[in-house]
């Protein structure tokens, strides 16, 4: 037991030494998988009476692996804490967590799990996956771009979600002449290379 702890410590020390020496960066697979939570964001724009209103989610958990050498091996898993929504005003925030909209009491989290990533040429890609929201799961495809700056990669994409496909805003809110069915979702994520130089 004692030995195993000691050997683990020795391995850790060796790994740290390698990491800080920077020698590992050249040999390690150049995948980006250390998500920088504070720089990542999921926002949205919806229209009420044709007036665009912006909002975002304050708490999003993102796990992603992006391999520029083999993009098809990339994957992403996103967990949105729906109660952390800011829908643009205190009044709206009180409303959208309720039963008619996101029903956070019964379904507190929305998840997106990718099933495939396809290159579209250049720095453009698309990801296919399953979005589970308010007890409904549907397939979703969205394009995104990747820009690399040294040891970090930035992912940006926009897609349109039809809110009524997930029963978001049903009952009296189902009238799309007041709140439009189309909600533009914008995501932005920043991830560092694992094993790369320090961030």
């Amino acid at each position, binding site marked *: 037991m004692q030995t195993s702890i000691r050997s683990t410590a020795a391995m850790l020390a060796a790994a740290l030494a390698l990491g800080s020496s920077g020698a590992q960066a050249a040999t390690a697979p150049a995948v980006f998988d250390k998500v920088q939570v504070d720089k990542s964001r999921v926002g949205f724009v919806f229209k*009420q*009476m044709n*007036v665009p209103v912006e909002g975002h989610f304050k708490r999003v958990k993102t796990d992603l692996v992006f391999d520029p050498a083999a993009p098809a091996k990339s994957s992403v898993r996103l967990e949105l804490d729906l109660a952390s929504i800011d829908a*643009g005003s205190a009044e709206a925030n*009180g409303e959208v967590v309720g039963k008619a909209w996101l029903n956070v009491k019964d379904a507190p989290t929305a998840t997106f799990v990718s099933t495939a990533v396809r290159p579209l040429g250049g720095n453009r890609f698309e990801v296919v996956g399953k979005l589970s929201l308010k007890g409904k799961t549907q397939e979703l495809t969205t394009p995104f771009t990747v820009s690399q700056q040294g040891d970090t990669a930035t992912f940006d994409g926009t897609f349109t979600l039809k809110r009524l496909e997930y029963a978001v805003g049903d009952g*009296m809110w189902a009238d799309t002449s007041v709140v439009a069915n189309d909600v533009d979702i914008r995501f932005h994520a920043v991830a560092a290379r694992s094993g790369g130089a320090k961030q």
Partner: protein
Amino acid sequence: MAPQPQRHYAGPARWTHWLTAALMLAAFPLGVYMHDLPLSPYKLQLISYHKWIGVAVLLLFLPRLYLRLTRTPPAPLPAPDWQQRVAGLTHGLLYVLMLAVPMTGWLMSSAKGFPVVFLGIIPLPDLVAKNKELGEFFLAAHQSLNYTLLLLVGLHAAAALKHHFIDRDATLSRMLPVLDRAQ
């Protein structure tokens, strides 16, 4: 024959006056009513209508100001000096509020992060960036200016009615020729 002295305000001045009056009389109670409604699609519709009316008042303000500054209004009817001064002051303040009331509404919308889209088709630029404190400030300003406006419109209308029914002069019919008394 001597030239007829101008008895009425010119047509454009009369039309824009009454149109502004009608818009304000619709927007004011609508604003008070919608403000306290719980959030619903109905409330969102009313808020939009209220904003559209406000923008229409703003759109009418410029031609009104132009007409007022470039055309000579009919000469004031005989009245005590203090009444002339109060009437002049009221008119001046009404012009200020005709501009300030819709502008504070627009500023409030911008500060609260809800852009104004006139008639649901013409997006107006945001005047300030989204800012909660600024939004609350413009809401308070919009409300207090509106109550000032209500007071002044009341005074303005009461004076017009007093001239028409008590003094039995032509003050009101200058703006509403249909009330012209047979000479």
